Structures are given as structure tokens and as C-alpha cells.
């Protein structure tokens, strides 16, 4: 049981990293990875939303949608859940951490349309996780997202001091680095044989 949960966590955060393996949530991955502290804030916000979204969507899926025989409504219902959660996080952050709120700017409301979160909830349904597994999966995916963002931010901070050829500057080198990161994360693939 516990071993299973640990495996789900490791799979979600490392071997099946939501950013670097499924290539979901690329928008904030490129957009908010310029500074480590911003990346950490974004990662924390997304992890929070992911965990809550996994809980709430699991409850709604099993106790509302399945009960009324409406599993086809999952996309619409999940989007409502995610959008509301992001609103709450935004209000929360504006109240308690205005600097982070300003630093994240447009990317905070954009978590609403972050495909990583919708992807997470849909995977959760697809793989028939129970409630506890869903929560762990949410935390794990959030941790994976934060990890990817932090690695990227660290590399990009060092990159500031590098003499990048002109045609690679900006988005180009960032996407190339993302590709290398994805390749290197494939090396973790043998960790779990599932």
C-alpha cells in the first residue's frame, strides 16, 4: 500500500514528469523560469492547485458524475473546479504575498488554463486511482512541475552570463534546453517498471 503510494509519487515527479515527459504546462515552464525565486513561487502555487484539484475533482467525479451517470461531463466539470481553485489561490496570494503576486503577474491566472492540471485530473480518472492515490499523484505532479521549473530557472540564470549565439538567444535556446532536459529525464525511465 505505502510502497504503491511511494511509487506513484516517484513516477509523477521524476520518471513520468508532467512537464518533461508529457510536455504539458510548457507555457509557465518557459514563461516563469527566468529567476529561481519566481520559479519556486510558481511551482508552489501550481503544486497547491494541483493537490487541491486532485482532491476535489476525485470527489466530484466519484460522488457526482459517476452517481448521476455523467462521466462525459468530466472535462467541463474539472475546468470549473480548476478555475475556481486558481481564483482562490490568486485572492489568497494577493492578500498574503503581494510581491509574489506581482512577480507572477499574468502567469498566475493562466494556471487556470494550464494543461498540466487538467492533464493531471484526467490521468487520475484514466488510471482509476483511489482518493489517497489521487492526492499523492497531485502532490507528486506538483513536485515534478516545481522540479522542472527550478532546474530550468537555474540553467537560465547561469545562461544570463553566457555568450549565446545571436540566433539562439531567447526562446530558441530555452526550448533546446527543455529538449535536453527531457532527454536526460528519460534516463530515469528504468527506475520504475510500470
Amino acid at each position: 500500500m505505502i510502497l504503491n503510494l511511494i511509487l506513484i509519487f516517484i513516477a509523477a515527479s521524476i520518471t513520468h514528469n508532467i512537464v518533461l515527459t508529457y510536455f504539458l504546462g510548457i507555457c509557465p515552464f518557459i514563461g516563469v523560469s527566468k529567476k529561481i525565486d519566481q520559479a519556486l513561487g510558481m511551482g508552489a502555487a501550481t503544486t497547491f492547485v494541483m493537490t487541491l484539484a486532485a482532491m476535489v475533482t476525485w470527489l466530484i467525479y466519484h460522488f457526482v458524475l459517476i452517481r448521476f451517470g455523467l462521466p462525459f461531463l468530466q472535462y467541463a466539470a474539472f475546468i470549473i473546479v480548476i478555475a475556481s481553485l486558481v481564483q482562490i489561490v490568486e485572492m489568497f496570494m494577493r492578500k498574503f504575498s503581494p510581491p509574489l503576486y506581482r512577480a507572477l503577474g499574468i502567469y498566475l491566472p493562466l494556471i487556470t488554463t494550464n494543461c498540466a492540471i487538467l492533464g493531471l485530473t484526467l490521468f487520475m480518472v484514466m488510471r482509476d486511482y483511489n482518493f489517497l492515490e489521487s492526492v499523492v499523484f497531485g502532490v507528486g505532479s506538483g513536485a515534478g512541475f516545481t522540479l522542472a521549473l527550478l532546474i530550468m530557472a537555474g540553467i537560465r540564470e547561469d545562461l544570463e552570463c553566457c555568450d549565446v549565439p545571436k540566433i539562439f538567444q531567447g526562446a530558441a535556446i530555452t526550448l533546446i534546453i527543455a529538449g535536453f532536459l527531457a532527454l536526460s529525464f528519460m534516463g530515469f525511465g528504468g527506475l520504475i517498471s510500470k
Partner: protein
Amino acid sequence: MNSNVAISILTMAGLGFFFALVLAFVSRKLKVKGNPLVEKIEEILPGVNCGACGFTSCRQYAEALAKGQAPIDGCKAGGNAVLCALAGILGKEVKEGLKKLAIVHCGADASSRKKKAIYNGIKTCKAAGNMMGGEIVCRYGCLGYGDCRDACPFDAITIINGLPKIDKNKCTACEKCVIVCPRNIISVEEITTKNFMYVSCSSLEKGAQTRKACSVGCIACGLCQKFSGSIFFVKDNLAHVQYNKLADIKNKDEVITKCPTKCITLVN
């Protein structure tokens, strides 16, 4: 089938209503009181986010103003109207009537400047200037492709016969043209007096050389220095003006008309 549709609609409506209630509750709990002063200031500011005040957006400038951490004359794009309105809100006084203006220190239009070659490259000053200093003989003068016009966010610059003309009603002294000009011949000056004059030439060549390149360049003859009582002065083969002393100049017409190449210009 019909009941299925009805249940779907009811379920979604129920979910929506539930989350709306939660959001309404949370937003009441976590309400942030905005500073009404910031809102007011932001309404006055032009809202073009040009960055000339040193802040990245009008909103940030407004926040700094409300805290008293920024000077109220920071907004260059808004000009005097905004300055006075800000002074009204913040209860500060301003000096009336100061207008800043971009000034082009070259007076050679396409017919006055001599060419050394025909240039067929990209039609921007930057490209032309990089190509062996452009097609004109003068190494200092205006290239005339209008980089400054393209950079101006307020359409204040028109190119007339290869020379930028600045509309002083539209110019907000945001200094975008100053930055973009590859020859560095545009500067922003405070028009402090009706007698405001400037030297419309930037050439540091010796007189004879300047004359070869252009018919209206400053040849550093020193006549202006003589007539103006050293308000004008010649340095590095070019006449300069002490703008802060122009208010006291007595014989401005004489200075302008005696200049052999007519390169002293009056802003009026």
C-alpha cells in the same frame, strides 16, 4: 435521453452555483483594500506604459507616487497637463511653463549635404550608418532615413526633404528618438526662454572640411561667440550654447543673421 440532458444541465448548474458561493465567500474573507489614491493617479497618467519615468508601467509609477517615493515630474509623455493634475492631487507645487523638446542638431537637408556614394542598402539610418558611415560625406550629420520617426510613439516627427522636423505640440520629450539615432544628433532640452536657440550642426571636423561636406555646417568661425558675449562658444571646431544663459541674450537676431552658414536656429 431527455432526462439525461436535464440531469447534465442541473449538475453543471449546481456545480457552478456551489463554486460561485465558495468564491464569493473567500473573496469577502480575503478582500484587499486598494489605495484609492493610486487609482486616481492611474486615471490621470496617460497609460501608454512608455517607461520614460523609469518604472515599467504607469501603474507602478502611480504606486510609487502615492507612497511619495517618486518625483511628480517623472511622466514625460503626459507633459504639463498631467504634471498639473498630479500636483493638484498630491498637493504639491510645480514650476509653470517648462516645456521639454527634442532638438535635432543637424540642419542639412537632402539638398545641402553632399554625397560620396549611392546607397542601395536597407533604408534605415542604422544600416546606412554602419555601411562605411553612410552615403553622405559628413560623418556627423543626419542620414535622413527616419529611424527617429519610426521610434516616435507620438507621431511627432516627420521627415521633410531628408531631415526630421519635430512637431513641438506633439513632442513629449520621451527621448526615444535620442536613443535610436545612430549619429546621436538629437537631444532633449528644456525650453526655458523665448530666445531659445541651438546650433543645428554636430560636425567636429575643421571648418574647411565641414564646408566641403555641407553648405550649412558650423565652420567654427567664432562670430557667434563674439556677438553673443560668450553665451555661444566654440569648442572642438563646433559652436556650443549655454542654454541656461539664453534668457539674457540681447542681440539674438544679430547672432542668427551674422552666422555665415546660418546654422543657428531659433525655436519659437
